C-alpha cells in the first residue's frame, strides 16, 4: 500500500516535471529557431541608394537558395552567409519576373532546409513569424532578427509602379509585422509550427492605400517557381483580346464643369446600348464593371477601353439611389 502511494507520487512528480518542461520554452522559440537555421544573408552589388543586401531561404539539401529579385543579384560576386557564419559564393540559376524571385545555387550541401508547401498553410489571424536580415542588424555569426505578427489577408493587390516597385502576379499574403525594411526581402515567414508560409518580397506600395505593403509571396507560388512550372501572370497584364473596332456605348458626359468634375451624363443617344440599358441624362456614372469612375476624364478613359461585344455593368447614381445597369458594348461606325 505504501509502495503504491509512493509509486503514485513519483508518477505525479514525473508527469508534473514533463508538463513543466513542455511549457517552459517561449511560445515562438521553436518556429523562430527552425527558420533561423534555414535562412541566409545575401550580399552583392550596390547602386546608389539601393541596398546591396537581402535574405535568402535554403530550399534544398543541394545548395538551392531562394531570394527576392534585387540589385544585389546584379554583380558577379554574390556572397551568401550561411546560418553558421560560413561564406559561400552563389550563382543565379533562374529568375521570375512575375513574382520577382530568383533561385541561386551554392556548392555547399546543407543538412537542413525549408520544405516549400505546395498548398496554403495558414488563414487570417494565424501567427506569422518573420526572420530576416533587416537593416543588417545581425552580425555574420549572430542569428537573424525575428518579428511576430499575424496574417492579415490573402488577395491580389493593386500595387504602384515606381522605379523600385513592381506589380506582383497572383495573390500575396499580407501580414501585420513590419517587413518592408531594407534587407528583409528574401526573408522567411513561418507559421506557429515553423512551416514555411512564404518569402518576404521586395518593396511594394499599395495603389489603394498609398502605403508600403508588408507581404509575403505564398509558398504555393514559390513551389511552382522552384519546380520550373509556370507562375500565374497578373490578369491586368494579360494580353488583350483582339481589338475589333472602337467601342460604342452612346452616352455623352457633361463637360462644362471640367475634366475633374463628377461624370454626369449629359446626353444618351436614342437606340444606343446606353439607352436600352436605361441610362438617363443627369445620371452620375459611379463605376464601370469593377472600375470606380473618379471623374469625367477617367470615365472617358474607361469607356474608351471597352471592347465591342463586351457585356458591362454600369453603376450610376440617380437622385439618392445607386443603380446597377447592364449593357452590351457595340462597335462604333466610321461615320459617327
Amino acid at each position, binding site marked *: 500500500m505504501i509502495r503504491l*502511494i509512493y509509486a503514485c507520487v513519483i508518477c505525479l512528480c514525473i508527469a508534473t516535471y514533463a508538463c513543466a518542461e513542455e*511549457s517552459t520554452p517561449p511560445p515562438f522559440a521553436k518556429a523562430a529557431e527552425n527558420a533561423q537555421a534555414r535562412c541566409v544573408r545575401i550580399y552583392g552589388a550596390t547602386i546608389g541608394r539601393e541596398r546591396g543586401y537581402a535574405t535568402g531561404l535554403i530550399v534544398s539539401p543541394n545548395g538551392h537558395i531562394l531570394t527576392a529579385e534585387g540589385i544585389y543579384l546584379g554583380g558577379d560576386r554574390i556572397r551568401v552567409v550561411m546560418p553558421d557564419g560560413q561564406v559561400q559564393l552563389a550563382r543565379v540559376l533562374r529568375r521570375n519576373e512575375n513574382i520577382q524571385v530568383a533561385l541561386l545555387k551554392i556548392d555547399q550541401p546543407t543538412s537542413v532546409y525549408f520544405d516549400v508547401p505546395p498548398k496554403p498553410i495558414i488563414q487570417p489571424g494565424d501567427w506569422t513569424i518573420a526572420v530576416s536580415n533587416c537593416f543588417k542588424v545581425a552580425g555574420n555569426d549572430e542569428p537573424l532578427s525575428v518579428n511576430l505578427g499575424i496574417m492579415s489577408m490573402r488577395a491580389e493587390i493593386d500595387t504602384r509602379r515606381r522605379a523600385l516597385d513592381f506589380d506582383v502576379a497572383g495573390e500575396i499574403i499580407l501580414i*501585420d509585422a513590419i517587413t518592408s525594411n531594407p534587407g528583409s526581402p528574401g526573408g522567411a515567414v513561418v507559421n506557429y509550427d515553423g512551416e514555411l508560409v512564404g518569402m518576404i518580397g521586395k518593396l511594394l506600395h499599395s495603389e*489603394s*492605400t498609398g502605403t508600403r505593403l508588408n507581404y509575403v509571396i505564398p509558398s504555393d507560388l514559390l513551389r511552382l517557381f522552384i519546380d520550373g512550372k509556370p507562375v500565374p501572370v497578373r490578369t491586368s497584364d494579360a494580353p488583350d483580346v483582339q481589338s475589333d473596332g472602337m467601342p460604342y456605348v452612346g452616352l455623352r458626359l457633361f463637360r462644362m464643369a471640367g475634366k475633374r468634375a463628377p461624370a454626369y451624363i449629359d446626353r444618351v443617344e436614342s437606340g444606343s446600348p446606353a439607352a436600352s440599358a436605361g441610362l438617363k441624362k443627369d445620371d452620375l456614372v459611379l463605376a464601370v464593371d469593377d472600375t470606380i469612375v473618379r471623374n469625367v476624364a477617367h470615365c472617358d478613359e474607361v469607356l474608351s477601353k471597352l471592347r465591342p461585344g463586351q457585356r458591362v455593368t454600369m453603376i450610376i447614381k440617380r437622385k439618392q439611389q445607386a443603380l446597377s445597369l447592364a449593357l452590351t458594348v457595340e462597335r462604333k461606325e466610321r461615320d459617327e
Partner: protein
Amino acid sequence: MSKAIWLNVAVCIVVLVTAEAGLCNDPARLAPRAFRVAVAQVKPSVVTIETYGTVSVAGGKRGTRFGAFSRPGEGPTTGLIVSANGHIVTSTFNFIRKPSVITVVLSDGSQHVAKRIGTDETRKICVLKIDPPTPLPVPVFVPADRVRVGQWAISMGVGYGGDQSAISAGIISAVNRVSGRAVQTDANISPANYGGPLLDINGRVIGVCVPLSPAGEQTIAGAEWYDSGIGFAVPLVDQHDILTRLKNGESIRAGKMGIVAAPLPMGQGVRLTQVAKNSPASRAGLQADDILIGIGKLRVIDMLSLRVAMGRYAAGDEVVVEFKRDGREMSVKITLEAGPFDYVHEATDAATAEPSSDDAKTPKPE
C-alpha cells in the same frame, strides 16, 4: 487496500487531466482562433466606402501635405455601422480628396448613396447617413472607461479593396491619449483601416481607427505613423456622447481662445504675447503679458500642458481660465470658439501663429 486503489486511480486521472490541459491550453495556439471569431462577429457591420468626383491632390505643397505619402491612396475606405437605420461612422481622412459623391457598400454587396451629416474635427471622425431598406446590424461597443492597457486589440479594414478585411492584432498601448480622446494601440492603424473598428478579443468595438497626433490638427496628421507601432482609435461610448451630436448634424471643432503664448522659464506658466481682436480671450478681458496658470482643473506650467489642457475642449465649451496679472491671481470664464482669429504678426514671427507649428518654444495660438 481498496482505498489505496481509489487514491491511485484518482491521482492518475488528475495527472492525465493536467497533462491534457497543458497541451490543449497553449494560449498562443488559441489566440488566432479568438481573433477570427472576434472579426467575424463585427464583419456584417463593417462597410466599404467609395468616393467619386474627387479633386486632384497634385496641387498640394510639395512634401508637406500628405506627410509620409507621396500621394494618398485611391482605393476604397472603411466605415462602421452605428445605427440600425443607416448611420455610419468613418474617418475624415477618407475624404481628403473632397469627393462630391460618397457611397456605402454594405456587407451584402448593396451600394447606397450616403450623405455626410456631422463631423468631429478633433477626433477625425464623421457620420454618414444612408437609407437602408432593412435594419442594419449594429456592433456592441466597449465603454471607454473599461479599456485597459495590455488587453488584446484587433484592427480591421477594407482599404485594400475586394470584400475581405485586412486584420491586425496587437494590444492596447495606452488609454486617454490625445487629450483623452483616443486609445493607443500597437495593432496596425493605417489608411487600410481608418474608419474601421478596433476590437477587443470578444469582438466588441473599442473605438474607430483614425490618424491622430497630439501635435497636429490637420486631417493628415498622425498618418505618417502608419507602420510605426503607434496607432489610435477613438472610443464612441464615453461621457462626451459624440455620436448623438454627430448624428444630429453637429460639427465639433477644436476650441480656441484666440491667444498666442510663449513659455516662461522654470514652469511658471505661459505668457500671452498676443490676444486676437474679437476673440473669446479679448472679450473676456485677457491682455498681452497676462500669465496663464490654469485651464479648467489643469495647471498650465508650459506649452505642452497648455496644449493638453486646451485639447480637452471643443468650440462652444466654457472653460475657467486662471491667470496672473501684475502678480495677482485672477480667473475668468471663456466660451471657446473655432476661429480663425486675426492675429497681429510681427514680421519676424509670422509663422508662429500657424497651428501646425510644432515647436513648443515658439509662441503658439490656442
